[in-house]
């Protein structure tokens, strides 16, 4: 350890003011503080001790909460691959291998490109490299289809980091969730690679007879035209090559096609547990998203104008990326509502809007992503009114 420290110490003067690499100080700082917690002490006046937490550790906690989703996702990509080519009995090792081959490059591209942009901006704009990207860099791969072209991942990352974050002044300032911005970018820029039958990685193999790359959401949306009962369509789906793939229990467990990290509600709930226990993610938001979704689902049942509306409300909770969005996207402290009252409204509206978009907007069955983006836009307004209520209370108190 001391040896490494010495290396850093000997390099440090070059990066400090007047050093030959002065420009790159913040790049150096990022590496240094990554390896060693800095030796800075508190100022003479004010708090003399500080909580042991820092942004890095906070972000690390979120990443750890995502690990179950990631691991499951890697296995699932392989599993879906073998299901689709008619070899469901393939060895777990093979499945994981296929998954790794598909997923790891996406993660590498996401981190390499994203951090690259961060370092360039840190150097040009002379501000510290922020840890925020640690989480974003992991979220981006998890919301991508398994066979997304890598250049698109790179492009989306660049767009999201520059336009979605750096333009606002960096971590903590952005208005829209950066990972969702990346996904929305792809969704609108290259729609053919992120919608339709892209959720199963096939590679060069020919799919088994009867294979369909549909997702539960597309089945739901299709029911609008076919008028078939959604639940029975879901239960019948996959007959012959993947029996019961969309049964309720499997929808919950998550061994089905979808974005790399978002298929399994179970894994998302484990993540949610980690976030809630550690207090890093707001339980209010998670709970209110689920509540909003469920209640909106019930409301739809009551209207019941078509088959998709009649789908039992509980299904809304397990199909699509709702759980993943609720746990990892909606809780992003920067873009969520920042007042405690606001969080309830914010989460609830995400849930309601998700269901509305799913049911009423045949073009975008994946309503969660757009619902969160939309509420990101309105979160400052919610906060504005919550803050105003606080001000009003103060003012009224004065006049009483």
């Amino acid at each position, binding site marked *: 350890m001391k040896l490494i420290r010495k290396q850093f110490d000997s390099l440090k003067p070059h990066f400090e003011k007047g050093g030959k690499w002065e420009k790159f100080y913040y790049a150096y700082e990022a590496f240094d503080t990554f390896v060693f917690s800095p030796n800075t002490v508190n100022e003479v006046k004010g708090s003399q001790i500080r909580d042991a937490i820092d942004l890095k550790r906070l972000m690390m906690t979120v990443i750890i909460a995502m690990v179950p989703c990631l691991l499951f996702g890697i296995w699932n990509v392989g599993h879906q691959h073998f299901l689709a080519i008619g070899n469901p009995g393939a060895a777990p090792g093979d499945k994981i291998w296929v998954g790794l081959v598909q997923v790891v490059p996406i993660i590498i591209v996401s981190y390499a490109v994203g951090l690259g942009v961060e370092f360039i901006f840190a150097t040009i*704009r002379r*501000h510290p490299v922020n840890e925020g990207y640690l989480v974003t860099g992991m979220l981006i791969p998890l919301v991508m289809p398994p066979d997304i072209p890598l250049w698109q991942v790179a492009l989306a990352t660049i767009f999201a980091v520059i*336009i*979605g974050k*750096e*333009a*606002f*002044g*960096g971590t*903590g*300032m952005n*208005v*829209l969730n950066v990972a969702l*911005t990346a996904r*929305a*970018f792809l969704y*609108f820029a290259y729609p053919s690679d992120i919608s339709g039958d892209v959720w199963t990685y096939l590679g060069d193999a020919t799919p088994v007879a009867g294979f369909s790359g549909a997702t539960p959401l597309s089945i739901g949306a299709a029911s609008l035209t076919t008028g078939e009962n959604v639940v029975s369509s879901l239960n019948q789906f996959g007959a012959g090559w993947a029996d019961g793939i969309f049964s309720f229990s499997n929808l919950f467990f998550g061994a089905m096609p979808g974005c790399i990290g978002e298929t399994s509600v179970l894994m998302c709930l484990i993540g949610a547990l980690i976030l809630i226990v550690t207090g890093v993610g707001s339980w209010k938001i998670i709970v209110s998203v689920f509540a909003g979704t469920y209640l909106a689902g019930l409301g739809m049942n009551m209207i019941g104008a078509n088959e998709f509306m009649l789908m039992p409300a509980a299904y809304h909770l397990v199909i699509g990326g709702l759980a993943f969005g609720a746990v990892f996207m909606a809780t992003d402290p920067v873009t969520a509502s920042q007042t405690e009252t606001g969080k309830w409204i914010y989460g609830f509206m995400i849930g309601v*809007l998700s269901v*509305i*978009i799913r049911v*009423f*907007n*045949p*073009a*975008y069955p994946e*309503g969660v992503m*757009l*619902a969160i*983006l*939309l509420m*990101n*836009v*309105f979160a*400052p*307004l919610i*906060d*504005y009114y919550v803050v105003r209520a606080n001000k009003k209370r103060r003012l009224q108190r004065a006049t009483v």
Partner: protein
Amino acid sequence: MDLVNLGIKSIFVDNMIFAYFLGMCSYLAVSKKVSTAIGLGAAVVFVLTIIVPANWMVQQYILKESALTWLSPQFEGMNLEFLQFIMFIAIIAAMVQLVEMIVEKVSPALYGTLGIFLPLIAVNCAILGSALFMVQRDYTLAEAAVFGTSSGIGWMLAIVALAAIREKLKYSNVPSGLKGLGLTMIITGLMGLAFKSFIGIAL
């Protein structure tokens, strides 16, 4: 039901700002504080509600081909559509003036909040744009009224949300070249991205 649908469509889907970029000048200039944004937004809703149906009348009974037959059958086939722009803009300007005067008389309180924004509105492209779209899309009078109001609401929603975001961003360290207009553009673009969730919604 069709009217409700049209209303929702005009507020969210065919949003004046995100889909047609109309009324951008005042949208960019008057979105620094939520309170003023609400004032301007309300004024736009108010004026649009009056002006779109008013222009509908003008279009229907004066400008359209053979529109003047209600005066005398000899006007059959007469087409005054080349006067459309000038008539519309004149009506908008006159109406705004009138509204200003009436509001000042009837409700000084309302005038206090809306008054300063009303003159701004005559040159707000969202107003003229709505009038022209109304003609292009061949709305009925009821549709025109709904369209006017909900276009205004959509515009108001956009400017108020933007103002809240900009208030929040007061504290951030934005690259200097992007300060103000540039960043507002980016925010508007990203807001448009989020608003896309409504595109295609049909009730």
